[in-house]
């Protein structure tokens, strides 16, 4: 069986600026893959191509077995997506959001009822099911948004900074539901600026100026750079001059 995400020499140019420069990687089914990089390194452009919103200039990529350039429609039907900016309808209740998204994803009424009940139970949201989403703390909104993104049982889920601004306990609970989804066979690609969270991934890549500068399990990556933490690796890749100066100082 092919990888859940299979990317080969994927490139995107805007005019004469190369935002994503021939990146190659794959993510296996059930893997949690951390997609890291500095601001402006090309992560967002790469994700837009992987979810079928932007065509690669050259190279190819498939997600859930579908080519992102020639079969973007099928890609979008087999993925889930959530970000800090895009999540749920604030003026609808928890239950109404589930019904709405279930309908958009083409679930039957029975499926929506069944999966909605399981979702609410799994998040211990029984008491808040009739509350407007706007009234929930951010961390709960994000956990709910993630569960809703899984409602149609997508093969691959893209999480773009899902824990930004979330309190430290809820942030950790969020990672537990990521693990649960991955154990169930869902493939996860996640971006984060918290380097402690990068340690929770099975494998990570670090993008610098449109290229993948490092990739592997967190301990492989640290080992290769002889670094004690991913923070040190990240600093060395993103600001090589600063590290050189500090070492000579």
């Amino acid at each position, binding site marked *: 069986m092919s990888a859940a995400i299979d990317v080969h020499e994927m490139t995107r140019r805007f005019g004469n600026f190369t935002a994503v420069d021939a990146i190659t990687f794959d993510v296996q089914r059930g893997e949690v893959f951390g997609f890291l990089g500095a601001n402006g390194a090309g992560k967002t452009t790469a994700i837009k191509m992987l979810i079928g919103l932007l065509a690669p200039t050259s190279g190819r990529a498939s997600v859930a077995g579908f080519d992102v350039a020639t079969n973007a429609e099928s890609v979008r039907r087999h993925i889930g997506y959530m970000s800090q900016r895009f999540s749920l309808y604030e003026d609808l209740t928890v239950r109404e959001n589930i019904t709405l998204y279930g309908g958009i994803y083409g679930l039957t009424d029975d499926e929506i009822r069944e999966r909605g009940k399981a979702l609410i139970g799994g998040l*211990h949201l029984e*008491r808040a099911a009739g509350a407007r989403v706007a009234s929930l703390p951010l961390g709960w909104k994000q956990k709910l948004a993630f569960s809703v993104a899984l409602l149609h049982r997508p093969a691959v889920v893209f999480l773009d900074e899902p824990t930004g601004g979330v309190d430290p306990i*809820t942030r950790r609970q969020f990672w537990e539901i990521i693990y649960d989804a991955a154990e169930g066979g869902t493939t996860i690609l996640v971006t984060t*600026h918290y380097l402690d969270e990068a340690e929770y991934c099975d494998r990570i890549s670090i993008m610098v100026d449109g290229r993948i500068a490092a990739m592997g399990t967190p301990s492989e990556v640290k080992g290769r750079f002889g670094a004690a933490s991913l923070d040190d690796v990240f600093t060395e890749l993103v600001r090589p001059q600063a590290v050189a100066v500090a070492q000579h100082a």
Partner: protein
Amino acid sequence: MSAQPLVVDAVTKRFDATVALDQVSFDMRPAELFGLVGPDGAGKTTLFRILTTLLVPDSGSATVLGLDVVKDLWAIRARVGYMPGRFSLYPDLSVEENLRFFASVFGTSIDEGREMIEPIYNQLEPFKDRRAGALSGGMKQKLALCCALVHRPDILFLDEPTTGVDAVSRREFWDLLDTFKASGLSILVSTAYMDEATRCDRVALMQQGHVLAVDRPSVIAARYPHPLLAVHATERHALLRILRSYPHVASVYPFGDKLHYSDSRTDPGVDAIAAEVRSFLATQNVSGVRVEPIAPNIEDAFMELMGAPEKLIQAAA
């Protein structure tokens, strides 16, 4: 007149049924770098809006540079620098035009403010003709900081300046703040990143409108009430489940490549507890185990102070 740059006294603010700020009190010392640390929804932005005279508190009072935030709003506005959380510059104006505009609103010029903004403006100058909307995220942030400083304020308010910013750029931004602090500026800065608390002289930890603690970060961390261990194992997820089943557990949380285990007892001493946990794990078929006593950090302390989030959801529902 008070020498204190900021005094917040029992400030409360409600929006309909939501209590955004509940009896919030703290104060700042001159040239202090003071952090409001907490997740989204803690009330940080509401507090900034009150301190910059854009909102009026329901009850309680606050003074900025000795001036009352309700009575003396015009005097306050001329003397504070404010960088809101959302990008608030004119995207169609160039870097230089934005800066000139903000300077002229305060009746000054870029040249008069030059010394204050020098450390950042040097980095921006090569792009001075570029439209602000076309700058990278990091450069936008630096321009916004310049615009907040160009009129040489006596106190600087920064609302989540590093949200969505990568780890290296965040560190560089805090280095800049150290420079401004050294020049005598008082700075109130908010953040949801716990690690940034340690860059502040003192912090107020906030959660859902409440102040959980106010002190130096090291003092708050040292008040953590439980013996704490860092536990490492090859299979971290399995380790998490096993440690949570240990009879004396108070909490277990992942921290990077380790777990932090806190024990509900205080009498055996942390080394004895570490030895016990080691022998417990030896009976549980976990490989690659390392257990060592550690000093709690500010994030351990925050999680202990905020308590169970389940309580919060019930309050919201």
